[in-house]
């Protein structure tokens, strides 16, 4: 640390320092303020965007309830183009697919769900895949269904594995492969999966009892 003899020397030193560094201080401060303002602006902007997307999605939900398909499709497209980075894209897709499936357009529903199946949001992706498999069951694409389930990384399936197991069972039943179906259903039960029909489905596959051999 420098030691100054007099007050004047001290003032001189300060002046000198300011001459050398003043500009960078001003620039630094300016930059800092600009950064803060920019960040706030960005946050506000982001928040505003999410709010707009949410409002559109709420409208979409209402229209879906009233079964206004055209309006739902229009809103979904708007969300996708204007607010592509929000989760509302996935949500609206799920609702679009439902309306299509309800109206009997299973192929259309499938296309939409296939898009969501690659969503980085693991939960949405799993939901989309589960629904895809159920559509495949309805369109008799049993092997494709099994392939889809087999392609899923067990890690990513996490708590959905019970749901997948039950669907695997359904696919095997449809293919007439009863033993494999039973194994799949039992695995669903072990995974703590609770569905209203699971126990019925297992019971329905009970293996026949043969007469006990006479005791020796």
């Amino acid at each position, binding site marked *: 640390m420098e030691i100054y003899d007099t007050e004047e020397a001290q003032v001189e030193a300060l002046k000198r320092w300011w001459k050398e560094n003043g500009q960078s201080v001003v620039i630094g401060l300016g930059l800092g303020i600009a950064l803060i303002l920019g960040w706030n602006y960005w946050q506000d902007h982001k928040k505003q965007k999410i709010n707009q997307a*949410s*409002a559109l999605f709420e409208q979409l939900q209402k229209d879906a309830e009233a079964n206004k398909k055209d309006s739902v499709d229009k809103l979904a497209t708007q969300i996708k183009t204007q607010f592509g980075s929000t989760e509302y894209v996935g949500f609206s897709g799920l609702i679009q697919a439902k309306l299509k499936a309800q109206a009997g357009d299973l192929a259309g529903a499938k296309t939409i769900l296939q898009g969501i199946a690659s969503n980085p*949001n693991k*939960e949405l992706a*799993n939901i989309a895949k589960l629904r895809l498999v159920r559509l495949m069951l309805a369109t008799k694409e049993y092997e494709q269904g099994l392939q889809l389930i087999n392609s899923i990384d067990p890690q990513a399936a996490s*708590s959905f594995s019970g749901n997948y197991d039950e669907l695997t069972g*359904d696919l095997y039943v449809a293919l007439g492969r009863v033993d494999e179906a039973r194994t799949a259903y039992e695995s669903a039960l072990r995974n703590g999966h609770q569905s209203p*029909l699971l126990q019925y489905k297992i019971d329905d596959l009970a293996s*026949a009892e043969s007469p006990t051999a006479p005791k020796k």
Partner: protein
Amino acid sequence: MLTTMREKAQGTFAKGMLVAICGTFALWGIQNYMGGGSEPPVVSIGGKDFFQRDVNKAYEKYRQNFQGMNVDETSLKKQALDKLIKDEVLLQYVHAEDLAVTDASVKTFIKTLPYFQTNGKFDDQQYKKLLSSQKMSSAQFTGEIKNALLMEQFQHSITESSFATPYDVEGFFKIHNQLRDVSYLTITPQKPTEQPSDDEVTQYYQQHQDAYKVPEQVSVEYVELTSDEMAKTIVVTDDKIKAFYDEQIDQYTTPERRKISHILFAINSKQDEKTALTKAAASQEALKAKDFAVLATEISDDKKSATEGGDLGFFNTGDLEKTIEDAAKLLKKGEVSKPIKSAFGYHLIKLTELEAAVIKPYDSVKADVTKAYQKIQSEDAFFKAGETLTEVSYQNPDSLQAAADALKLPIKKSTLFTKDKGDGIAADEKIRTMAFSEEVLQGNNSTPVEISADRIAVLHKLDHKPSTTRELKDVKSEVIAAIFINKAKQQATDTAQKIKERLLTGTNIEAIAAENKLTVQKLPGFSRNNTTVPELLNQAVFKAAKPLAGKATAILVTLPTGENIVASITKVTDGVMSEDDKKKMELATKNIAKAIGQNEFEAVLGSLQADTDVAIATPKPIAP
């Protein structure tokens, strides 16, 4: 089935919120006192700590869903904690995923809540009043509602987007409406004719000692203190009642009420403070010649009250700005105030009606006063006597005599009772638990048992009979009867087992029935909903394997009554939709979709929870 399929709704969050609000309305006061700062958290979810009071609050909230139902508290507490965790995980998720609910939606939602409505319309006054009574700010409240709606938005995006394909619907009916053709025989136990031998009897008796045990029994003497008894000891004199009345005079007074009208001279962008004051002063002059209501209608800036001659009605302290209330309280009836300043501007205030405070005369409320006096006194006396009872019975542990003498209470006696059952005072479980506690069995006075808020007792052992086993000679007939029943049941099961084997090898059920003098019951097209046969049989029929290649399957069901049913299942028919089902097709599809959606949402919650750090502290052992 379709209705039961709709599972217990995973409680919509916003509705849960309402319960939460009512809950907090009731609980707020308590919690403010409970917040110890240094306690460890009970559960930590994704880095956020929840303390005992949060868990208690969650439990109270959850319990309201089961009001009036008999549910096990321990499992309810566990469920409440589970729900707290699930909700928090979900809340953190919806925040992390940057979801939003617009302020407009929050507002619309709040406006539909009946709590804040008068005559079916949202009432801002009511809203503010309810929130302030909960010491909750509007921002806090809307924040919580916003969170609830956020969670609901996400939940709905999963559950409401769920659908059921025709395959799902058909599959449901195929299995749910499945029919099975069943024929069955019932084998009833027959009482054996042969008397069991002495050896058999001894052996059975020795193998079933538990059945012939007399449980441990205790009887106690006790000193019982009730607040009703204490009330009788309160000496009531006129002087005391009158003094109590004077002391509590506020309780017997209807406070005065004031009704006011006003004329407002607003301070705003069009009119500055000075102009407003000048106008107010001028109007005060004008009032000498003009009616207040007329002038209010003409010039008041408060347009709403102006149409009613400036009337603001009766007010309660706190309704209006303090300056106005203070001024109004000094006015005589008909008098008009000087200009009074408020946040809105200057007001001229007229007191239009004055209902004086009314003190209910002593004679008219004497009975009520006496009752209130007695209640307070007896509570006090009960509390003090309770302390005496505790102290004296503790200091003289060998007998209740000292405690009874100190309180001038009798020593009462119970009859013998067991741990599970007793009469009189022993009908109470807390009494029985205490009577069988070590301190009492060793011959000491018990600590006081609080049977209810106004009834306590101290116990002392009178008699203690350890558990004994009744001797064979005393129970011989019981043993023989038991052996008969057992043998009969066993024989019936054996017969049934043999019949089942023969059915499995292909023997005709009619032939077997004829041999055994039994009647074949036929149930063609037996459904899951059939309630004419025992539930156990119905379940077993549908759990049984299907007949293959014309070979019937056979099952054996032993009913708790000892009856055995052997059934042969000859045919299984896939379920089809009944006409009735077809009519309800749309509803069925909707309900199946809903059940699937709930299921999927549960999986989503599970997945979110698996990705969140949840640490539950091991509960502290409960101090003895």
